[in-house]
Structures are given as structure tokens and as C-alpha cells.
């Protein structure tokens, strides 16, 4: 849990306004996940379709290559696995045990 989740009612901006642009990074949505994406580096061709389609920007890329999932924000929607080309199938969704 990040610190923002601990804020009490006296600390919050009035009316639920968001005053600092880009603070969604501090709001962890990973807890919503049922299925977690699992990546197979041997199959991955680094086409980065998963990165393009991820609605939460939860895929890290470094030097033009897949570099990991941001599990603090990944909601487990499975779009990355769906978009991974059928001949590659480098991402599988696995039920997450918590």
C-alpha cells in the first residue's frame, strides 16, 4: 500500500479534486487483479504490441525491449496476452494466489 491510501479526510483536497497532475502513479490498482501476466523471455520477439495496448501503461520497456510488468498498477485485464501474436504467445495469464 502506498502512502496516499493512508490519507485521512482532513488531508484530502476538497471535492475529490486532483491537484497534482500525474498522481495516478501513486494510486495502486494492482490489488484489483485476479490473473497475473507471466512473460516468457525465450518466446518474446520484443514487438512491443503488449506495451502499445496496455491501457494502464503497466509494461516497462528499456532500450526498445520488454523489461517487465508494473504489478503495482497492472489490473490483470489480459489485453497484453490477447495482443501477443498467436505465433509467439509469450504472455500467459495465470490465476494469482494471494
Amino acid at each position: 500500500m502506498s502512502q496516499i491510501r493512508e490519507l485521512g479526510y482532513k488531508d484530502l483536497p476538497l471535492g475529490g479534486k486532483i491537484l497534482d497532475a500525474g498522481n495516478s502513479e501513486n494510486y495502486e490498482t494492482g490489488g484489483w487483479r485476479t490473473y497475473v501476466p507471466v512473460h516468457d523471455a525465450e518466446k518474446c520477439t520484443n514487438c512491443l504490441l503488449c506495451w502499445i495496448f496496455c491501457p494502464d501503461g503497466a509494461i516497462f520497456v528499456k532500450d526498445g525491449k520488454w523489461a517487465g510488468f508494473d504489478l503495482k498498477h497492472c489490473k490483470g485485464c489480459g489485453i497484453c496476452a490477447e495482443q501477443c501474436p498467436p505465433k509467439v504467445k509469450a504472455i500467459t495469464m495465470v490465476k494469482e494466489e494471494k
Partner: protein
Amino acid sequence: MAKTLGLTGNEAVAYAIMQINPDVMAAYPITPQTALVQKFADFLADGDVDTEMILVESEHSAMSATVGASAAGARAMTATAANGLALMWEIVYIAASNRLPIVMPVINRALSAPINILCDHSDTMGCRDTGWIQIYSENAQEAYENTIQAVRIAEHPDVLLPAMVTQDGFIISHGMEDVTILEKEQVQKFVGEYKPHYPLLDPEHPVSYGPIDFHDFYFEHKKPQVDAMENAKQVILDVGREFSKLSGREYGFFDAYRMEDAEIVAIMMSSTAGTTRPVVDELRRQGIKAGLLKLRVFRPFPAEEIVAALQGKKAVAILDRAISFGAQGGALFSEVCSALYNAGQRIPVINFLYGLGGRPAEIENIQEVYQKLQRIVQTGKVDNLINYLNLRE
């Protein structure tokens, strides 16, 4: 200097809005509010205001446009009545929850069905829990002055809540009376320049309004609304005191008429108080210690102050001009009872539901209220807790 004009309640509030000169006014016509917006449109056409007037296709849109304008940083207003307010419902909550200090005159009218365009308080009493401040006006003069004060109350940094200012449909909205109007400069000086709270149209400080909020934050965003309502009490008194220096009239939570040594008291809101005053005077001439407590502010509800005003009274009648179906009497009755109970006061109380759909509340009906109170004092018994005034059996 102030001048006295013959004005209807609608026209008086249109004058107030003209003198406030809001940045944006979005409205849709509905009886009995139509004449208010029409008069304001006259002022606009005559160049008396530089307001951006948005003519919308429904009240849902009127409130939505007002919310958008207010969030953008404008001093924004609208006006409505009855079914129009009902159609706004969803956005009425959003205005309050986004902490937008919108001021909205509401001309009290019955809700359908059956269709009825005449006065009762079902419309605003129905949205008493939306997070809006509610100020009820007895006559056109009060409607004018409450509208001006509402701007300062709503926009106060400790409050930042929307406010509705009501008047009784037709009885006040279409009845002409002498109204003393301040100079526009006086009103402009009183309301002051609007300083919006984190407006959307401030590119140096980008903000988001209305993001999603679940079990983890929603509750924390509601409590400050409760606190703001509580803060509004002091602000209402302060603004009323400051305004009385302009108008010479006093504005608190309520008007206590011949209350000091009163033994039997009727509590009510809006124009019926004007009918009740001569009844109280007549009873006093007969040596009966009658009093009237005319409530001006229903939200925030001044519970402690009402309890203090009722201290030592022998019987109290509470008049509700709206029915809460399935409840224990009207909403005002429930609030007063709750306040008395929590203060450990066991004063005999009685509820009268009255005036629905424009049913007249005449002198003789009000006399009946005080007669029942006298009987309660004599017998020490409340036979019938909830009564219907001027209803045919």
C-alpha cells in the same frame, strides 16, 4: 441610495442576479420560475449585465452547464422549480460533492402527479440531503436579500457549498409587493470579486474534477462536506450581520416572533409565516401567549438554536408543507423532534401537514393550529400527533 419598487418575487430575485452580475447563467423555463429568467434576460438584452447566458434543452443540462462553468472558475447560477429540480437531481448532488458554490433560486412548487403548478415544498424538501445549503424566504424582499447573501455564504472558503434560495411559488413569485432594492454598486461591493477554488481554466495549475473514488476514498470525501455544512452556520450568521448594515433587516437562522414569553409556538417556513403573524397578534390581544418561529435556514439545520428558542415552551406545532411518505410526519417535524429529544427536552409537539399543491393556509387554518396547542396545554395530552390542515375528509 436604496429605492423601493413594486416587484414580484421572481422579479426581485432577477434584480438580485442582475446586481450580482454572475459570469454564467444557464436555465430552462419552468412554471413558476419562468418569469425570473425572463426578467433576467431583459436585463441582459438591455446591457445591464455581461453574463454569458446559456439557453439549454432541459434542467439536467442547466445544472450540468452550471457545474461546468463553476468548475471552470466562473460565478455561475441557475434557477428552477419542482419537476425541473427533480430532473436536475443527479447533477444537484454532483454540484455539492464537487464543492462548487453555485447559487440557485428555487420557486417552490408541488411535484407531479397529478400535475400541479402551485406551491408546496416537496421539491426542495426532497433534496434536503443533497449537500446544498437551503435558505427559505418569506416574501420578495427576503428572496432578494437571501439571494445576495447566498453568494457570500456559498463562496466562503470555509464553506464552498452550493446554496438554494427558495420562495413560495405564485404566492410570492407572482405576487407584487414593495421591495427595497440596493444600488448595484452596493451589491457588487458586498459580493466582491469571485476567487474560484482550483478552477479548471488555470493552465498553470492543472487539476482534475470528478475522478473515480471507491471504498478507499469516497467516505473521506463525504465527511468534509459535513464539516463544511457545520462551518456554514457561523458564516450564515456573519454574512447576515454584515448584510443587515446595508438593509437594516436582521438575518439569522430564524425569525423569533413574540417568542420570548410565548407558551404555545408554531414553527414553519416561508410565506405562511406572513399569515401567522396577525394570528399571533390577535391571540396576544386576547391574553394568549402565542409565538411564531419562522425558520429561514433548513440546511444546515440549526438544531441547538431551535432547542434554545423552545426552552420552557408548553406546546409546539410544526408545520410541514411537504409530505415524507412513510415517515413519522414531515421532515421539519422530524428534525425538530430529533433536536428536542437529543437535548433532553420533552415538550409536547404536534405536526401539521398543510398547503399541498397550493391548498390555501388561511387565517382560520392557522387559528386552528393555535387552538389545538391551547387544548394540549389544557389537557396535557397530544391526541393526534400528525394532522392535516384544511384537508377534506
